[in-house]
């Protein structure tokens, strides 16, 4: 469906429409002025002609009027008529307004007072009888029935004898004016067609680079930069310079994007390498011990004490490998599945962690201020469990763990605070790296999993820590996300 709002029309169309409108307006204006001027001038010329014809009669009229030679007067008027087919009527009236001769004698009998047909004629008759100087009567207006009338008073030896009136039709002028108006109209139409065609071409040509720039920028907006083709540069005007700059920017953007992609790729490879190395190292260490134990047991198959001693070691080693693999799976497969649980599931972690503390002297302070009906992601449960376990592992006897949950805005925040040894500034950057650990028997995957899960939940994780004072982890996740049914 075409767009009806002119504001969103392409610049090329608006420009060409504007050019067309200007050409049309100018053409019509000039045409109209020409036709009107032509008409006015022809009208004046016709008036002069009417006066001239009247005068030609008036020159010979006095003698004939005095001699009552009506026939000569009549023939004089008749001759006018045969000389000019524009004559509507011609008449000679005496000082009392009596007809001396008229081109239509049947209706205007000689010797009787001239009787005007209507009010306009009555008015003109009055004016003609009052005229003492040559004058032109004009019907005015632009129509076929119009006329120009030359009125000449007749004098003989300064005595007023009467008046000659010769009326010419504007019909021929009207036809001519109409024809020239039609010609002008046709010319204007030609101009409009040519002008708008040229206007369209010119504006398209001018706007083409702008359209390309716009399309290019739209592509950038959509993040597509690879299929960018440079705009051809025509001229060195503003548009030309814009095109050059745009091409440069696009090239630079494309290079930057490629660079970024390369960097991201190499970072991915680095992370993958680190994980692989960690897995290899962490799995390989117990494997060497395990293989040693199995080798020793194979050599001494009947040494029961040796079995007693080595089986727990093998068991412990395999469990460690299992834990590492489990954590890797949790950390790497976070996209899979996300079941929602009630917030009370988190409260159950309290008992779980108490069991882990067992006989040690560690206190847990639990504050859950979140909405009781809130649903949360199962991943959040894993996050909190990892953070609690981490706290328990760093604390010695007399330690205290604060676990607080509250809602702020559209976020649910969980804080896990301990009064342990804290984290030195030097290692804070590596805190969430996989296989980074400060504990002798840690896998270095707990906080990495926390970080990965928080990221997945579009949450934020912050660490506050001071050496010797303790550490606080703040995890905030969107409630909407946690609440989603």
């Amino acid at each position, binding site marked *: 469906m075409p767009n009806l709002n002119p504001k969103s029309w392409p610049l090329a169309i608006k420009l060409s429409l504007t050019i067309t409108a200007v050409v049309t307006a100018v053409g019509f204006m000039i045409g109209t002025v020409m036709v009107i001027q032509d008409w006015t001038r022809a009208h004046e010329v016709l008036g002069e002609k009417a006066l001239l014809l009247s005068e030609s009669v008036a020159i010979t009229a006095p003698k004939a009027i005095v001699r*009552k*030679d*009506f*026939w000569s007067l*009549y*023939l004089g008027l008749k001759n006018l008529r045969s000389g000019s087919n524009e004559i509507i009527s011609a008449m000679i009236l005496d000082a009392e307004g009596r007809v001396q*001769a008229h081109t239509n*004698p049947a209706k205007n*009998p*000689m010797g009787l007072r001239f009787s005007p047909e209507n009010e306009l004629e009555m008015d003109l008759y009055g004016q003609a009888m009052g005229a003492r100087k040559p004058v032109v009567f004009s019907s005015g207006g632009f129509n076929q029935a119009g006329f120009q009338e030359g009125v000449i008073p007749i004098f003989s030896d300064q005595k007023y004898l009467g008046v000659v009136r010769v009326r010419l039709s504007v019909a021929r002028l009207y036809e001519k004016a109409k024809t020239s108006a039609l010609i002008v109209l046709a010319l204007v139409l030609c101009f409009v067609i040519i002008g708008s065609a040229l206007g369209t071409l010119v504006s398209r040509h001018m706007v083409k680079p702008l359209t390309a720039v716009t399309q290019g920028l739209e592509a950038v907006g959509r993040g597509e930069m690879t299929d960018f083709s440079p705009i051809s540069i025509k001229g060195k005007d503003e548009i030309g310079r814009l095109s050059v700059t745009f091409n440069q920017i696009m090239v630079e953007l494309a290079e930057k994007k490629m660079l970024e992609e390369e960097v991201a790729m190499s970072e991915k490879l680095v992370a993958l390498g680190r994980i692989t190395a960690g897995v290899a190292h962490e799995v390989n260490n117990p494997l060497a011990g395990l293989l040693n134990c199995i080798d020793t047991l194979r050599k001494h198959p009947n040494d029961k004490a040796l079995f007693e001693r080595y089986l727990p070691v093998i068991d412990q080693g395999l469990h460690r490998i299992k834990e590492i693999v489990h954590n890797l799976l949790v950390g790497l497969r976070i996209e899979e599945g996300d079941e929602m649980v009630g917030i009370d599931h988190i409260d159950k972690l309290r008992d779980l962690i108490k069991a882990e503390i067992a006989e040690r002297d560690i206190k847990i302070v639990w504050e859950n201020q979140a909405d009781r009906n809130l649903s949360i992601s199962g991943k959040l449960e894993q996050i909190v469990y990892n953070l609690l376990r981490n706290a328990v592992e760093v604390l010695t006897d007399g330690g205290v763990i604060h676990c607080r949950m509250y809602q702020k805005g559209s976020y649910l925040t969980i804080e896990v605070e301990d009064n342990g040894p804290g984290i030195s500034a030097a290692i804070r950057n590596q805190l969430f790296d996989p296989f980074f650990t400060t504990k002798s028997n840690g896998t270095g995957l707990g906080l990495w999993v926390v970080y990965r899960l928080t990221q997945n939940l579009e949450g934020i994780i912050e660490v506050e820590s001071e050496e010797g004072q303790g550490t606080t982890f703040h995890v905030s996740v969107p409630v909407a996300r946690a609440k989603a049914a």
Partner: protein
Amino acid sequence: MISLNVCLKSARLICLFLALATTPGFAVAADPPIRFGLTAVVVTENLRFLDQWSDYLAAKMDREVELVLRKSYREVMDLLNSGAVDFAWICGFPYVQKRDPETVQLLTVPVYRGAPRYHSYIIVPHNSPYKRFSDLKGKIFAFSDPDSNSGFLYPLDLMVAREERPESYFRQTFFTFNHAETVQAVSEQFADGGAVDSYIWEYLASYSPEMTEKTRIIKKSPSFGFPPIVARSGLDQVTVELMKNTLENMSRDSAGQSLLSQLKLDGFGDYSDSLFNDIRAMANRVQIDDANFQVQLAE
């Protein structure tokens, strides 16, 4: 070469002689041209016809003939009286007017439709309601020539018979000085009525019927003597006889017949002065007012 030169010289001499011999002025230098006065013959100044006629007369009479055209009968009469023309074709009315001494003599009379006679027609526009001459009272009337019998004297006589005068009988009158123009004035309704020569009206009816069709004859006069050809008194009798014979013999040769047929005349005939007695009687009836009246109307 020499013989050719001689030939050329003699040829030149012959040419010179021939040129001198054929120059008309050289040949008729002894006799002055015969001058013939006319008003418009029939319709207008049909000059081609007049040339043919003057050439015909000149050839027949072996004298140069010059046709002199004037607007009115009065001007032609003045030319006759002063001797400026030798012959003239005038109307019966000026012919019968008394002159002392008499300046004209009757030469010959045209024969029209078998007789030297014609009528006056009183005509009105074909669509007008007028049926009688009396219906034209208070209307506009067109006369032809103040010296015309059919175009002025006859309608004047009609008014005199009613004891009326034209200036009171009609609202307006005017002279066209030409019968054909009187027909035009009536056909175009410039005049409500007019008096014309029957010969001219019939002539127009056959050559330009569109004009006469717009007129209607409401009165036809008794027949009058046809406008005659006259000679000025005192003209030598040889010339008078030569002209009379030439005109009266026109119907006897084809060139003359052709000219006569253009005029729609049968020929010219020798008639006595009594032919114009009717006109003379009318002129006598209106004579009393004549001098005054004509001045009043024409000037």
